[in-house]
């Protein structure tokens, strides 16, 4: 008789491929923590979480907390928002290279008048979250990290 026992199929399905889900990453941010994954093979840190190491593709990953410290690599001041973000204007998306290595995207909390080219290269620290209430295409509440210039 060909065919496979249901229990065997269920057992195969129970294998977990994701060490840190995106939902848990967002829960971390809400608690003031920037979570990532440390690779057992290369030691590199992956953030945002992925099923494999962002540096070497290895799958032996362990959840870790990042310091939240980093450096601004670029930013912009958005004046024309997409639907759902009109009330936030003006706001400052930024890319931050964390002390641990990976780059993360978030928002910069500072006066827009001071957001000049010199901001690139400055040291920042995780300082809360920005919450988006979602829309019919991206349902539920979602958050991103907010950074503040240090000193």
């Amino acid at each position, binding site marked *: 008789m060909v065919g496979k026992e249901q229990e065997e199929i269920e057992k195969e399905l129970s294998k977990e491929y994701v060490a840190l889900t*995106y939902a848990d990453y967002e829960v971390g941010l809400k608690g003031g923590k920037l979570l990532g994954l440390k690779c057992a093979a290369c030691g590199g840190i992956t953030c*945002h979480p992925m099923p494999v190491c*962002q540096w070497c593709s290895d799958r032996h990953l362990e959840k870790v907390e990042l310091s939240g410290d980093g450096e601004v*690599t*670029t*930013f*912009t*001041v*958005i*004046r*024309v*928002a*997409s*639907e*759902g*973000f*009109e009330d*936030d204007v003006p*706001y400052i*998306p*930024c*890319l931050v290279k964390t002390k641990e290595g*990976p*780059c*993360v*995207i*978030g*928002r910069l909390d500072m006066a827009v008048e001071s*957001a000049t*080219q010199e901001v*690139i*290269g400055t040291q920042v620290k995780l300082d809360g979250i*920005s*919450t*988006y209430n979602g*829309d019919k*295409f*991206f349902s539920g509440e*979602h*958050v*991103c990290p907010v950074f503040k210039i240090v000193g």
Partner: protein
Amino acid sequence: MRDVAIIGVGHTKFGRASKTSLELFSEASLQAMDDAGVVGADIEALFQGAALPGFEEGQVMPAAFSAAELNLGPIPATRYEGACASASVAIRDAAMWVSSGECDMVLAGGVEKALTMGTAFATRTFAMSCHTPTEGAVGLTFPGVFAMAARQYAKGYDMPLDSLREKMAHVSIKNHRHGALNPLAQFYKKIGNLKVEDVVNSMMVADPLTLMDCCPFSDGAAALVLCPAEDAKKYTDDPVYVLGTGQGSGSALSKMEDLTKPVSRIQSAKVAFKRARLEPKDIGILELHDCFTIAELIALECLGFFEWGKAAEATAQGETDLGGKIPTNMSGGLIGKGHPIGATGASQVYWMVKQMRGEAAKGNQIDPVPEYGMTDTLGGDFGTLCHIILGRTKK
């Protein structure tokens, strides 16, 4: 694998369209079939770029209905989605199907009705080709992405931001000048005489990009008929050959090493040049993805036409205009001609074919006609890249 030729091209007027997407695509397709001298019964498969039809008209699966509207019969008809590069990846796969021997004649192109959506909703749907988990809650927009790239460009090459903005303005000035000369362009006979101050002083969208640094939202369609190169002369005296193609994929923005050097584009272009057995110095004309002024500069460098950090000054010096080192976007590009995203790659190929036939509008046509040309199309924030190298002769 067989060599592939383009034997017919079609292109609707870009801008605001009252016709449906199916009608727009039909119009471009029938023009292309008439141009090739073929009929519906000759077409064996359809490859259609369409990025956001579900949001524009509540229509998914537009490719099947496009084949049906033209009575092409129950042939394979597939929608390709690679955001703004949708049509280019459709054309690339169409060429593969012909090359493989699976089909002897196919229709490929794209269609979009983005202007119909209005600015706020269009911006929302365009932003869907950002990496939603990380970039969604940030409220990132496409102008925002390229504004961040512009700041990184200025920083990386130690250039005052205002100086870069003035040089970027020359991209808008050039592309609007050529768009104003193109009867199919959204801005035909409009904005053809911009000055640097007009660009830098227009409404700020995402600092440092102003409205005049941005391409518009547009409706429109473009289509091509492809067949094996060995059959091409039966249909036309001026076939244009697909000499090489490349395609690349990117990542979430935060996983990119440098926004001014997207690996997806560099890799895709490299493959296209290798397949075509050509180098940048062989290429006589470019149609590239100037969704924003800075995007044209980044593309020129990634494709190898200028050294890193040199495209801004070269553009300001006219090296990318008619008579310059590498005429770029003589159709007006996305900025002057319009950007119906799912159709853009097909429009780029259309204008390349027109240039090679000497049929581009006066003031935009290269003289003598270019021997080899290249298109560059970008989807999302460097998520999908596609390159197509075309020539008047087979290599």
